[in-house]
């Protein structure tokens, strides 16, 4: 065998590994390793600046369970997640149904609904912070027109949650609608035709044919938005104008989420061990909520 052939053989055999290697290296070093290391750090009294102060076992976790600020953040996270995900996905279904009708200028409408998704969260949060301003915000101005007193959107728990959720809904509804639309367009058309022949109403067809047919897609979006919704950070962080400095989400932590708490503990108070415990508990909570959601969504989607 000539050296050329040998070289060719080595090339065929090993080059594939070489060209997929960068992904695994980057993921291993900057994705997987930190995640696992988080578990290790969470078992220590570990200061961000001074480093490891000794193994403490589950002490960070027991402290966490007795920490009212943690429970507050957990409650806020779940409340914000529910307020943003549920309306968002239902609105996306409705919007997808609209876009699924024969439209003139299809590309235009689709691009229009996706536009909010390409704006950075930081910019969105600043705009919404203004829209929901207490004194000069346009939302309060509009409420005033119909005779409702101005709401202090940052001071109250429910009001701040509504305002923050509206950012999430605004940003993600169109994106999810496009994903639903793609699935809807691959539903076999004869299903619709026979339903129409049977005289089913449009609403009936939507709930008994369209929705069950795109079930896997619905489950997919439920999982993705659960994971995203449970990790809310930027929207609440920047909703509080002084937020980046303190990261407490309002004076009484009305809208501090778990990731904000993780950030406050780790990067404001430098308690890396405690912050890592928050991260792992959050990870567990995300898993549990994702499984619960998956089950519920499967039920809903299979009814009809």
């Amino acid at each position, binding site marked *: 065998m000539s050296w050329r052939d040998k070289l*060719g053989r080595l*090339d065929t055999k090993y080059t*594939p590994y070489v*060209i997929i290697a*960068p*992904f695994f290296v980057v*993921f291993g070093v900057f*994705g*997987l*390793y*930190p995640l696992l*290391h*988080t578990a290790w750090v969470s078992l220590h009294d570990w200061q*961000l600046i001074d480093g490891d102060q000794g193994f403490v076992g589950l002490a960070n976790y027991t402290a966490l369970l007795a920490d009212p600020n943690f429970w507050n953040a957990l409650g806020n996270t779940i409340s914000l997640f529910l307020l943003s995900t549920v309306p968002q996905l239902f609105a996306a279904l409705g919007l997808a149904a609209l876009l*699924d*009708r*024969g*439209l003139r200028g299809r*590309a235009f*409408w*689709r691009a*229009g*609904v*996706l*536009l*909010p998704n*390409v*704006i*950075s969260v*930081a*910019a969105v949060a*600043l*705009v919404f*912070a*203004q*829209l929901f301003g207490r004194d*000069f915000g346009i939302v309060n101005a509009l409420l*005033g027109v119909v005779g409702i007193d101005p709401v202090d959107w940052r001071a109250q728990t429910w009001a701040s949650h509504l305002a923050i959720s509206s950012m999430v809904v*605004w940003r993600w509804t*169109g994106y999810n609608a*496009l*994903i639903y639309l*793609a*699935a*809807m367009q691959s539903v076999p*058309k004869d299903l619709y035709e026979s339903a129409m022949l049977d005289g089913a109403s449009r609403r009936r067809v939507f709930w008994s044919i369209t929705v069950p047919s*795109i079930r896997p897609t619905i489950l*997919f979006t439920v999982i993705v938005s659960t*994971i995203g919704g449970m*990790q809310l950070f930027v929207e609440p962080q920047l909703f509080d*104008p002084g*937020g*980046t400095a303190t990261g407490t989400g309002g004076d009484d932590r009305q809208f501090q989420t778990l*990731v904000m708490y*993780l950030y406050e503990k*780790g990067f404001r108070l430098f308690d890396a061990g405690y912050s*890592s415990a928050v*991260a*792992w508990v959050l*990870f567990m909570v995300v898993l549990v909520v994702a499984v619960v959601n998956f089950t519920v969504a499967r039920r809903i989607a299979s009814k009809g």
Partner: protein
Amino acid sequence: MFATRSKTGPLTYALLVVVLLASVFPLYYSFLIASKDNSALGDAVPSLVPGGNLFENLTRVFDTVDFWLAMQNSLVVAGTVAISNVVLGTLAGFAFARLRFRGGNALFLVVVGTSMVPTQLGVIPLYMLMSDLDWYGTLQAVIVPALIGAFSVFWMRQACEESVPHELIEAARMDGCSVLRTFWHVAFPAVRPQAAVMGMFTFMTAWNDFFWPLIVLDPNDSPTVQVALSTLASGYYTDYSLMLSGASLAVLPVVGIFLLLARQIVGGIMQGAVKG
């Protein structure tokens, strides 16, 4: 579209117009406030006509933070990340789609599986890693972890499956082309359109990233645009014209890219969706 599904009345269009206005309004509002002076915000019912203070407010943005530097940093970060994802993602995607090697399918499943891992939760050790490397406050701390992502590999594998014919690859190999030459002369030209869209997509994602840059860059030194925005917002007194002038500037590049490529990006999202 077929007839039974598509009784498109004026009501449908009316609803869509409302949705579209809701999509655009916050953006317009941001430009609107950016064009006014702060005292105009006190009007009982805000006027929806732009004011004349745009240039003054923009100047103030540049006086308050080094916005040029931030823009430049973001451009470097997003540009490098986009190019790297195109190159490395296309190479890996090509390997998974068109090369035969032991464990290829299993490794691809691992790639897909990694997208489920919430990397955001590993920020503490990631931060410590960056300090150990002496990368705190440097752009490579933001760039290197994003050089290649699962999405890029997945996307480019799909593109190679669709657009690179097996026969061409085999012919090139028969002629004695090395794997890399085959990639460069046969596969890459065939997937260039998909690679371009993906590059833009990763550019936008990197440009918009906030959480990690906020942690690892010094907000007062040389942050990215998004982090610079948060410093505009964190004064004692909320200066909305200033904040929203900055926000408007920061969204310009992505909105520009989006308007140019809207058709392809929308097509890409629809294609990437899990089919029902």
